[in-house]
């Protein structure tokens, strides 16, 4: 099977280039990550992040034939050859397929991604009805792989100011949690022309999310909460 991979090692390369690989696959090699492991056996200088190989840790996000996705859950049989692999768009490349995710996590941290409840904790669990818990479905499953944010043009142009789909999905995860008491501050934190309102419902994020989540929908719900608060 044929691959074209983005290569860049600041230690020796002036600028990035595409390198071709031809790999013999075993019948057990189902996913793109399996093929990348074989390429690495040929050429140990190819660098990429990977860990759980089952789509739950979010390490091996990359741009596959023009679309962001996880190498470990992308089936080889569904890929057009030569498979073109590039790092996630819009983030600075450290090396090969490894990008610097500082900006992405900075935005995630900026939404205060933790439950705030200042009541003294009860002896037992804080009660939550199954219906209220259901509100968190489609939100808490995010694996922070950055496929969404790095496919979002608004995030490309303002990564320092726009929170991006992943961060906003998490923001809504806490806004939607009946146990959280910081809704007002959370909305204040986003009431800004850049932080939330750079989202133009382009929906690239939804198109690429390997977990099938819908940041656009979550962002819409944040906007509705804001309108309800203001009007």
């Amino acid at each position, binding site marked *: 099977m044929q691959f074209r991979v983005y290569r860049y090692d*600041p230690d020796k390369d002036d600028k990035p280039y595409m390198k071709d690989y031809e790999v013999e696959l075993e019948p057990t090699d189902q996913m793109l990550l399996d093929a990348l492991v074989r390429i690495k056996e040929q050429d140990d200088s190819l660098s990429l992040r990977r860990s759980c190989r089952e789509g739950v840790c979010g390490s091996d996000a990359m741009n596959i034939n023009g679309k962001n996705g996880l190498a470990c859950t992308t089936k080889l049989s569904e890929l057009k050859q030569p498979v073109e692999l590039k790092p996630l768009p819009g983030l*600075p490349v450290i090396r090969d397929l490894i990008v610097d995710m500082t900006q992405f996590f900075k935005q995630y941290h900026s939404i205060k991604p933790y439950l705030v409840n200042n009541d003294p904790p009860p002896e037992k669990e804080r009660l939550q009805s199954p219906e209220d818990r259901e509100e968190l479905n489609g939100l808490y499953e995010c694996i922070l792989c950055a496929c969404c944010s790095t*496919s979002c*043009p608004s995030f490309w142009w303002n990564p320092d100011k726009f929170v991006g789909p992943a961060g906003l999905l998490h923001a809504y995860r806490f806004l939607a949690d009946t146990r959280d008491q910081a809704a007002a501050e959370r909305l204040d934190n986003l009431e800004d022309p850049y932080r939330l309102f750079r989202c133009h*419902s382009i929906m690239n994020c939804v198109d690429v999310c390997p977990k099938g989540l819908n940041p656009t*929908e979550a962002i*819409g719900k944040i906007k*509705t909460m804001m309108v309800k608060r203001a009007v």
Partner: protein
Amino acid sequence: MSDLTVKKQRPVWFNLSPTNLPVPGLVSIFHRISGILLFAGIIWFLFLLDMSLTSPLGFAHFTSYMAHPVVKLVMLVLLWAFLHHFCAGVRYLLMDVHIGVKLPTARMSSFAVFAVSLILTVILGVRLW
């Protein structure tokens, strides 16, 4: 520490090829392009409105001006821009009230935006010509 050891500016690539853009993304970028065209067209529309409403003579000027093929072409482009912006806008308004935000519907509605705005452009364009 890493800040000190980074000698070179790290490269960044942007996934700009329109062939990589999903249909909802295409609707969005055309929404922006059509918006820019309409913004530029505001002054021209005002000029036309002014001309057509000044006097019967101005109106005559206006009709002959409008008959010019180049003007017609510009008009056609702006007509498309308006219709696309209109249809896409309606789609966004619906999404703002949480209608059609799931991926399959969003894809379908994007196709619909392109189809409806182009069909309307053709129909109105034929009338205009």
